[in-house]
């Protein structure tokens, strides 16, 4: 392999990128855009759930129960409705997500030391949100019941019992449980995939489509030189984006980087090679840019987004799908990034993931070089 020929190819590709300042600008802006979106817009925290109340009772006691909801940061009492039909309509329209129905004898039952049956109607179309809302409701009801029970015990002339259990909770790594600390480290992986697979997926196929590949083939450049040379500029773009993403995560969103930045850089370089090799393979086998584009979306971007543990937790997936995730590189890299950022893990915790990525990188390069046919079609 001749370094000068490889460099010539790399230089040519650099010029290509340089001559299209808009694409370059977008590539640099992309991490910023994604960071802003995920940092500000994406949150799975559920707060201020819109609620309607149908209160058949109307006594002070029932209002104080309702107030436990409206007084909490999790619920936003929109309105009192008069009948079931109105409630149904509000939920149908999506104006409210939850309806609370208090029975006519609410106050009487509670005061008699019994349990009043309260009905909760939930819009389940967003199952995750519904699940969280339901757990809030249960917590409030639980608390109310405990208080009323203790009150009843006191009223019977006994001393108020101490609650038998108390949970003392400590949260590690992400003390405030903020969504952004979960999403932003993973975004680094997404951004590298965009450069590596989506952008690099075009480099060979573009030359085929424009007919310039024939010119390249007629030169003495070898397959490996062509592939490595083409890889080079995108490797740098990837590093640039990585740096931008980490910088923004630290400065704008204050995501802690607890581990070693150097380790992050080294392991990211390895992952970058894996992603680039995948992009080049796509580029070598796809005949048209449109096809390369589609393939990059399906085998590069979507799995990174969905199956890497970036948004959806892998352990919740069905086991056949979990097995598939072992075959995709982003899974290992997302783990690496999250661990370094939040847990501050060192290499002794990450060597397994690293080993897999190195293997995938070598294999990927081999496949990319093999699948590129240096001959006229």
């Amino acid at each position, binding site marked *: 392999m001749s370094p000068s020929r490889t460099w010539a190819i790399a230089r040519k590709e650099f010029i290509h990128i340089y001559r*299209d300042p808009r*694409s370059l600008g*977008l590539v640099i*802006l*992309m991490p910023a855009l994604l960071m802003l979106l995920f940092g*500000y817009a994406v949150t*799975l*925290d559920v707060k201020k*759930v819109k609620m309607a109340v149908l209160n058949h009772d109307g006594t002070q006691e029932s209002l104080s129960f309702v107030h436990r909801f409206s007084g909490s940061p999790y619920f936003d009492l929109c309105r009192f409705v008069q009948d079931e039909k109105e409630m149904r309509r509000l939920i*149908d329209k999506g104006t409210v997500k939850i309806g609370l129905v208090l029975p006519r004898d609410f106050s009487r039952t509670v005061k008699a*030391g*019994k349990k009043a*049956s309260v*009905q*909760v109607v*939930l819009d*389940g*179309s*967003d*199952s*995750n949100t*519904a699940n*969280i809302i*339901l*757990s*809030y*409701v249960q917590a409030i*009801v*639980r608390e109310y019941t*405990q208080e009323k029970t203790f009150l009843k*015990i006191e009223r019977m002339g006994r001393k108020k*019992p101490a609650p*038998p*259990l108390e949970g003392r909770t*400590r949260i*590690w*790594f992400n003390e405030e449980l903020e969504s952004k*600390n*979960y999403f932003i480290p993973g975004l680094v992986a997404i951004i590298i995939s965009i450069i590596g697979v989506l*952008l690099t997926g075009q480099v060979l196929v*573009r030359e085929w*489509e424009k007919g310039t590949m024939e010119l390249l083939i007629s030169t003495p450049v070898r397959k490996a030189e062509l592939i490595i040379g083409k890889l080079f500029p995108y490797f740098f773009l990837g590093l640039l984006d990585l740096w931008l993403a980490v910088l923004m995560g630290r400065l704008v969103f204050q995501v802690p980087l607890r581990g070693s930045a150097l380790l992050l850089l080294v392991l990211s370089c390895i992952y970058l090679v894996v992603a680039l090799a995948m992009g080049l393979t796509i580029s070598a086998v796809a*005949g048209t840019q*449109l*096809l390369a584009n*589609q393939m990059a979306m*399906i085998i590069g971007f*979507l799995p990174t987004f*969905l*199956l890497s543990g970036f*948004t*959806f*937790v892998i*352990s*919740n*997936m069905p086991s056949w799908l979990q097995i598939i995730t072992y075959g995709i590189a982003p899974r290992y890299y997302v783990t690496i990034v*999250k661990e370094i950022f*939040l*847990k501050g893990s060192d290499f002794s*915790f990450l060597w397994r993931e690293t080993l897999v990525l190195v293997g995938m990188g070598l294999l990927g390069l081999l496949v990319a070089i093999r699948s590129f046919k240096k001959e006229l079609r």
Partner: protein
Amino acid sequence: MFKRVRFLFVKELIQVLRDKRLRITLIFPPIFQLIVFGYAANLDVKNITTAIRDMDQSLDSRDLTARFRSSKYFKIVSHPQTPKEIEALIKKGEITISLEIPSGFSKKLKKGDTAALQIIVDGTESNTAMIALGYVSRILSEYSTEMIVKRLNREGMKDFEEAGVELEHRVWFNPNLESRYFYVPGVIATIAFLLPMILTAQAIVREREMGTLEQIMVTPIRSWELVLGKTLPFALIGFIDVVMIALIGVFWFEVPLRGNPLVLLLGSLLFLMSSLGIGLFISTISSTQQQAQISTFFFMNPAFILSGFAFPLENMPQWLQYLTYVNPLRYFLVIIRGTFLKGVGLDILWPEMLALSVLGGLMITLSSMRFRKRLK
């Protein structure tokens, strides 16, 4: 006049469908997305990996452990002996939550004192951690009240029962809270959005890149005929894909289609105007396919994230919520989820339909005007 549109229409279809691999990519990606979202996109939290360190080893502590074991939310994978062990387990990611039952637990319960349990959670996955903590506190408080009632019963108050509220919940539209009910209609919407947009943008830019657009322009075709001929085939392809995915969603994933399919059809047609309009617009700002691709990507991400497809809009900051009102995908998602899950009709969905008509009409008109100007 319509003859010319028809010719272009047929040519465009031939061009897309001729390539066998491209044909596959028209069918495979939507199905792939559907499968992944149908199975993988699951935010339900179950089988939380749990460690319990029981320093008491009494009947009561085992009873509490058993409650965690029998709940479907927790999976006890380890019984560590030391705090160091717990730390290692969490660092390695082998457990998400750990619970320490102190020695003297049983004694304190019997005396009527409060026993403190140490809980440590890995907060990395904030959503999971929050839900897990909710489950823990539910189990603990249920156990607490039961203990009190039991004690009172023992102390001679035979039929003491709790006072307060008995909760009875009904979940509408999705009684078992299945994630796929939420995501499968969403995937249909994203495909109706993406496919026509990408195909339109790429097809026009490719002709421009190859120089064949000029050849078309010297023919007597009028520019609006060109616009129609370049968008309708992809609208058709997008439409077929939507129907295919909807059928798989209903028959394979068993997501109920409770509303009127015609309402859905109307919504899809209105929505296609927007995706074609954006595709056309991208084609006017791009001179190479690479530029078109990056621009598409640039449009796509905010459109997805600010649509309510996966992340609820209500939780976003207010200024971002205002931004979502110009996003056509937002309205289509309401329509598609409304018809699929809620079974509602035009009487409820008309504001969204109206918004889609206005946005779509605006987008396609402005883009066509820009497209015509670029041709000259």
